């Protein structure tokens, strides 16, 4: 099937490859071999699907095969040791999520934050503090007050994951007590919230866009620096004096020692690929918009900020090394 596709794309890709080549004249003939994107899960999850779409979009720009390699295990550490074992020549790209950062923080990872360099961000899905539409918590203040007086049952994914770290950071900064209920997936605790099994949850807009529109869920605050385009009336936590910013992000990195010229070729190809209708359509399907896409400089600094924020919380929780 790929051979068939390859020939179909050959014309356009040759043209773009030639362009890329001339634009970075002086660089070698990168890429001349297939490029792999290493994903830390089995085929099928969100990170894997995103990577597969990005691979297709990037391949159309580079004129070389881009494929996904699944290396599951150890909260990303298997993928990271695999990447580490490969030469830093730009032919191995790694998909990265907050999970990877927390694995690094726990000291379970062969790679460190200083070994990687961001290329581009594919999705950005800030965590939103959410309660049921008919909840008595009308504002983030109501929730914080209730959390100071009693205990808030808060839904999220597994302990030590981004939802947990985000919830605990928020609870600590606001001085609330939170009883964290872990679920397997976001959709599951969204359902638990709408049944009333839990009081609040850190949910993403991608999972709840329709429920918010219908008034089933009420967003109280966004864990981001700026208000979201999709939710202009919802305040951020930093507006409320709590400097907490966590997001379900997915992006791509290479080893830091990869030649700069190659990094630029990859970054350009990815960004250009993600502008395509196909990728934009996918973003729409997962409830996001074009603000998800970010270039190397901003993405790289976001990874590092998130790493630092995670470090503080995890040390408090006794999870970091």
């Amino acid at each position: 099937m790929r051979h068939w596709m390859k020939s179909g794309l050959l014309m356009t890709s040759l043209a773009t490859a030639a362009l890329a080549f001339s634009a970075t004249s002086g660089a070698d003939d990168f890429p001349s071999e297939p490029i792999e994107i290493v994903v830390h899960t089995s085929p099928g999850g969100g990170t894997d699907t995103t990577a597969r779409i990005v691979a297709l979009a990037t391949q159309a720009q580079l004129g070389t095969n881009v494929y996904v390699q699944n290396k599951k295990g150890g909260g990303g550490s298997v993928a990271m040791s695999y990447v580490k074992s490969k030469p830093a020549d730009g032919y191995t790209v790694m998909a990265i999520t907050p999970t990877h950062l927390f694995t690094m923080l726990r000291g379970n990872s062969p790679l460190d934050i200083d070994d990687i360099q961001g290329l581009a961000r594919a999705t950005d899905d800030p965590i939103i503090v959410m309660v049921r539409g008919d909840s008595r918590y009308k504002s983030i203040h109501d929730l914080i007050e209730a959390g100071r007086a009693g205990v808030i049952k808060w839904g999220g994914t597994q302990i030590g994951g981004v939802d947990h770290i985000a919830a605990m950071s928020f609870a600590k900064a606001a001085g609330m007590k939170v009883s964290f209920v872990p679920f397997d997936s976001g959709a599951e605790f969204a359902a638990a919230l709408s049944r009333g099994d839990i009081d609040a949850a850190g949910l993403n807009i991608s999972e709840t866009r329709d429920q918010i529109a219908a008034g089933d869920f009420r967003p109280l605050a966004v864990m981001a620096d700026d208000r979201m385009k999709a939710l202009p009336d919802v305040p951020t936590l930093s507006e409320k004096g709590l400097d907490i910013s966590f997001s379900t992000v997915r992006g791509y990195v290479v080893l830091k020692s990869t030649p700069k010229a190659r990094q630029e070729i990859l970054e350009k190809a990815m960004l250009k690929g993600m502008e395509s209708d196909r990728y934009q359509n996918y973003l729409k399907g997962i409830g996001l918009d074009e603000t998800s896409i970010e270039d190397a400089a901003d993405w790289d600094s976001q990874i590092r900020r998130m790493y630092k924020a995670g470090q503080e919380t995890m040390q408090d929780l006794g999870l970091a090394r």
Partner: protein
Amino acid sequence: MLSRWRDLLPGVVLLVMVVALYWITTTFSTVPALFAQGMQATAMPRLILGVMAVLTLVMLYQGYGHVEEDKPVISWRMWVTAGLLLAAFLLFEILGLTLTMALTCLLIPLLWGERRLGRIVIYAVCTPVMIYLLFTHALQLRLPQGILSPWLS
């Protein structure tokens, strides 16, 4: 006397395993107090191990005084086959999947008493090639090819 005790061997093996695994549960890291909420990580494994130990004792009690049921004799071929599978596992990394499979497809029929040499050779060549074509080219699954990797993608 031990011959009149059915399931003695599996019972003892299971009990040893339960004790060993229970010991491993004591090495689990402890949960930071902040989110130890109710069930500890050791609770479920220990409960299961406890139930297993009790059940194994019941099984041993039921088997006492009964003769072991007749079991098929384990032939030397079984042991050699098992060894072959293990050896194949160790060789995968070096020789790669396709070459190792060619070897197992050659050796297992010989070991199991197949004597038509011509057929075995054809079989041992065709099977790995077919599997390689099917998985790597039709299904796009990359397999480790070890020393053959320069030639097979």
